[in-house]
C-alpha cells in the first residue's frame, strides 16, 4: 500500500461510509493533487469502484489533477469583485500567464484558477497569489506583478 494512505488508516477506517471525502482531502493536502494511481490505491483500500471515486473528485471544486504552478493565481469571481470597476479580465490574464482558467503553464511557473467569493467583498477585486492576498487590484498593478514574477529567475 502507498505509504501516504497507510498513514491515514487509523483515522479513516475501512468500514466507515464517510471516509472517502476526508481521505481525498488529506491526500491532496499532502501530495498537492490527485493522481490516477492514488485514486486506484484509495479504491483498493476502501473497496470502492474507481469510477465512483473519480466521479466524486471531479464533482467538487477542491480537487485537482495537476500540480499547482510555482505561482498560483486565484482570482475572486464573487459578485462584488465581478462588478468592481477594474474587474479583472480573465482572458487577458490567460494570455499573460500562458495558461487557461484551471490550468498550468508549460513551464510550470503559473497556474490560474477563478474561485468563488473569498469573503473580502469590500476590497475587490481580490487576487491571491500563493498565500499573499492583493486587494483593489487594478489591471496595471496586476501587470506589474506578473512582469516582476516573470523576470524572477531562480
Amino acid at each position: 500500500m502507498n505509504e501516504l494512505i497507510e498513514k491515514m488508516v487509523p483515522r479513516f477506517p475501512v468500514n466507515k461510509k464517510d471516509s472517502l471525502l476526508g481521505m481525498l482531502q488529506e491526500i491532496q493536502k499532502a501530495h498537492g493533487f490527485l493522481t490516477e494511481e492514488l485514486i486506484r490505491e484509495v479504491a483498493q483500500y476502501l473497496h470502492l469502484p474507481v469510477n465512483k471515486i473519480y466521479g466524486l473528485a471531479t464533482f467538487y471544486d477542491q480537487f485537482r489533477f495537476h500540480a499547482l504552478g510555482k505561482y498560483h493565481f486565484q482570482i475572486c469571481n464573487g459578485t462584488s469583485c465581478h462588478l468592481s470597476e477594474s474587474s479583472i479580465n480573465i482572458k487577458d490574464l490567460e494570455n499573460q500567464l500562458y495558461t487557461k482558467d484551471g490550468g498550468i503553464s508549460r513551464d510550470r511557473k503559473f497556474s490560474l484558477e477563478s474561485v468563488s467569493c473569498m469573503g473580502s467583498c469590500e476590497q475587490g477585486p481580490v487576487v491571491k497569489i500563493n498565500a499573499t492576498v492583493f486587494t483593489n487590484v487594478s489591471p496595471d498593478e496586476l501587470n506589474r506583478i506578473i512582469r516582476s514574477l516573470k523576470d524572477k529567475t531562480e
Partner: protein
Amino acid sequence: MSVLDSIQTKDFLIEKILKNYSGIFDKGTGEQLALIKREKVIHPVLYLGMGTCGIVSGADKTYMAIQKYLNDNNLEAEVVKTGCLGFCSAEPLLDIQLPGKARISYQHVTQEKVEDLLNAVFHHTLIPENILGQHRFASHEEWPGVDFIDQHPFFAQQHRNVLHNTGLISPWSIDDYLARGGYKSLFKTVLNYTPDKVCEIIEQSELRGRGGGGYATGKKWRNALDTGSDQKFLVCNAEESDPGVFLNRAFIEGDPHRVLEGIAIASYAIGANSAYIHIRYNHEQSLMIMENAIAQAKEYGILGENIFASGFNLNLFIRKGAGAFVCGEETSLIASMESQRGTPQTKPPYPTEKGLFGHPTVVNNVETLANVPAILENGPTWFRSIGTNGSKGTKVISLAGKATRKGFVEVPMGIPISNIVFDIAGGISDGKPLKAVQIGGPFGICIPPKGLSAEIGYESLQEIGASLGLCGLTLLDEDICMVSLSKYFMKLLHKESCGKCIPCREGTHRMLEILEGITKRPKEESSHETLERFKGVVQLENLAEVIHDTSLCGLGKNAPNPVLSSLKWFRDEFEEHIFDRKCRAGVCNDLRSFFIDVDICNGCNVCQKKCPETAIIGAIRMPHFIVESKCTGCGICFDSCKFNAIYYK
C-alpha cells in the same frame, strides 16, 4: 485584586459565573469578573480586528508594527485579536483602551500609522484623523470631543443580538465568552429543561430558519424529536457558497462559542449525541477558529461526555466541505457528508425523518443556531417582541457592491430596505445615483430604487418575488449592466447545477445561451443566428417558468429569478441590447466598437503588442488603427493605453 492564572480563571468562570443561577455575586467576584472582561484594565489593551477582511486589509502587518512599537518603547500592553466588527470597509480597525478610559476605535490603521497613533494615545492625546468613535461604558472616563460609536450611522440603527460580542471579544478565548454570560443557557437547558420543553420554547419564540427556506425551527426540532431512533444528528450548515455573502464566516470568526452553544442546545433538544459543523474547505480562518473553540470547550468540560453532570453527551466534529454551491442545500449537504456526490434528493422523506446515514437529522444554518442561546436566556416573549408579524427577531445582512460603507450589520426584521441602503450603507460611494439593489445572491432579484420601501422579512420579500436567503445586499450604480449581471448569475448557476435533473441542467444552459446571444458581437452573426436570437428572447420567460416548475431542488427552482426580475424592472435595457445592439453601461464587451483617436495616439505600440487578435496595425511612432472586422471588443487595448487615445462607442 490580583489577576488570576489560567487554571484559576477557568475554575472561577465555571464555578462562580456559569453555575451562578441568580446572576448576583459579591463585590470580590464582581471585581474579578470586571478584570476578565477587561472592563477594568491595569495595562493598556489594544484590540485589533483580525477576521478575514481585516487580514486582507493588512491587519497582520499592523499587528507586527504594534508589537514592534511596544517592544521598542518597553511598554506593557495586551494585544487582543478580535473578529470583525462588521464595518469591513473601515478595516484594519484598532481599538485602544487605556486604564480607566473609554475604548476608542480607529479605522484604516495600516502599519505606517501605528507609531504616530500609539505615540499620541499613550500620552493621552488623540490624532483626530481616522477616529471611528468611542465605546460607551458607564465607569469609563470619556474622551472629550469624540462621538460614541453607537451614534455612528453604520451602527445607530442596528440591533446587535447575534452579533453582540462579534468584534469586541477574542474569538480565540473561551474565557471572553464565559465572562459575558456565555454557556449559561446551555447549563440551564441541560439541567432544568426536558428536550420537549426546549422545542416548546423555540416554537413559542417563532424563530424561523435563516438559511433560506425560513422553516419554523421549533417545528423542525419537534419533528426530529418525535421520530424514534437510537441515533440522531445535528448538522450546522456553514457552507455559505453564495458569492458576495460572508455572514456565516463572520459569526464563526467573531464569536464561535455562541454558535457552539446553539449547536449544543439544539442537539439536546432533538436528542442527538453527535453534531457536525460543515465549513467550506477554503474558509481557512473559520476552520482554524472553530477547531480551537471546540478544543477549548472540551477542555472546559462543556462539550463531550456527561456535560455538567447532566448525563447528556455531545461529540462535535468539523466536516470540511469540498466546495460545491449546491451542497448548501440540505439533502446535498448530507450526501456530501456521506462522501457521495452532492446531489439533492426528493423530499419527503425529510432529513428530520431520514437524514445522515439514514438517521433523523436536523440541518440548521449558523445564524439560526446563533439565535438560540439568547432566546433561552431572555425567553420567547422577548424574542417575539422584535420584528414583524411573520418574521421575528433580527437578521444579519451583508452589504457589498458599490456601497459607501460595506460590511455586515444586524437589523430588526421589518426595517425598510431603503433605511439599510441609504442610512446604514450610506448609498453609493462618491455620491453617484443608485441604479438597483441586488438582494439574495444568485437566486435573488434586483430591485430598482422605487421598490426599496419593501421591508426585510420572509413574507414581505416574497411579495416582491425575492427571498430572504442568506441576505446579502449588493448596491449597483449606473456602471452596471443588468443584462451582464443576469448573465453572470446564470453562468454561476449553470456551472453549479449538479446535473441530476434535466430542467435545471439543460434549462440553465439554454438560458445562458440566450443571454450570451443577446450580448454577442453582431458582426459575426449570420442571419440564422439573428433569428435564433429573437426566438430565444421570446422563449426566455416561458423557459423560466418550466425550469421553476419542474426542477428538483431550490437551485433549479430559483435559477430564473435574477433574469425574470431584471426583465420585469429593466426591460428597456434588455430591449436596447436586443434591438439597438447597444449596452448603455459599456460593460458588454462585444457590443463595443473601439477606435483610436489619431490626434492623441503617439504610436507607442503598447496596444498593438497586447491585442490578442492582432487587430491593431500601425508603424511605430505613427498613429495606429483598429481593424474593426478583427476586433472582438475585449477592451485590453483600452485598458493598456496610457494616453487615453482609445475610445469606444
